[in-house]
């Protein structure tokens, strides 16, 4: 009897530990970050405000001709396009698509902008 109680207690503690662990690490998408490296802002901040940064810069580029800013969509693609497919779309592990599918947010950018990294003449050889 004592043994049974002890076993039940152990089982419960294991179950609780697993539940706590699972709550700590939710099922976040597994993303292919491409080249990665130092981003223009902290990743945590980028997750929440990248769309605002992009929108701000897009207006300056479009209407005022101010090119070369650090928050360009071309640079997002340049760093984060998958090294294998050369794109930020195409699978649920692709950088942009993966997270947008996870967050259930429609991704319109790439209906006009290219989702592929610009391949230089040297790199394509």
């Amino acid at each position, binding site marked *: 009897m004592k043994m049974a109680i002890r076993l039940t207690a152990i089982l419960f503690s294991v179950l609780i530990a697993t539940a706590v662990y699972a709550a700590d690490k939710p099922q976040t998408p597994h993303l292919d970050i491409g080249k990665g490296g130092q981003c223009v802002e902290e990743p945590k901040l980028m997750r929440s405000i990248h769309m605002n940064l992009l929108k701000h810069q*897009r207006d*300056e580029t*479009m*209407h*005022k*001709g*101010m*090119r*070369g*800013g650090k928050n360009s969509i*071309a640079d997002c*693609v340049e760093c984060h396009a998958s090294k294998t497919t050369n794109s930020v779309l195409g699978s649920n592990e692709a950088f942009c698509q993966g997270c947008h599918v996870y967050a259930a947010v429609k991704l319109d950018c790439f*209906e*006009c*902008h*290219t989702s*592929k990294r*610009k391949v230089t003449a040297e790199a394509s050889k």
Partner: protein
Amino acid sequence: MNDVKLDTKTNPDSKPNLDRREFLSKSSIGLAGLAIAPGMLLFDMAHGRPQGEAVSNKVRWGMLIDNNQCETGCNDCVTACNTENGLSGGTKPTDSQWIRKVQLKDTFTGHISSLPMMCQHCEQPPCVDVCPTQASFKRADGIVLVDKHICIGCRYCVMACPYQARSFVHEVLTDQKTEVPRGKGTVESCTLCVHRVDKGETTACAEACTKAGHNAILFGDLNDPDSAISKRIRSVASTQIRADLGLNTGVRYEGI
């Protein structure tokens, strides 16, 4: 920038970071630049705009097309435009055309000539007047563009343009160019190669025409009295197509 400010605050007596040797070497590089390439420097003053600085109305980009130099049957400007901007090159009614060759025939003399026709980058653009969302706009330096982020695809501008310069994208596109985003449901037209102009380069059509040896397209700043285009329009007779509309086009023609 912040670091420098902090430095002078905490250390008001400290000299600037540049030491004497560094200062001398840097200034000599600057002087050498002046001496070696005055042409380059002049070019920079005319076209180079520091990155991060907004376009201004001190500049007005335009083109002069010399119809006498434009060869009938030559399509190089159209091909160059298609390649530069990622257009299909098709000529179906639903295909985008940013520039096209128009053939003119004088019915009296029988003389045939052709000219490239594209967005004329008007000073008073009718497409901008009719746009309900202000997606069609004129940049300070005279380039007329469509902001596809806010274009709703109503096509009022297509109807308003006297030059039939605008196209509507009917179908889903893939493999656009990085510098030239294009997409279904929006209107588009010649951008005067704005992505190249912002880098201080000339337009793809002008470049192709020069390369083909015709030199029929001259691109430049209409506001700069010393630019090649200003000198040319001052010395020879040029005209605007449908000048009667009073739109003051940025693209002018010579010899028509």
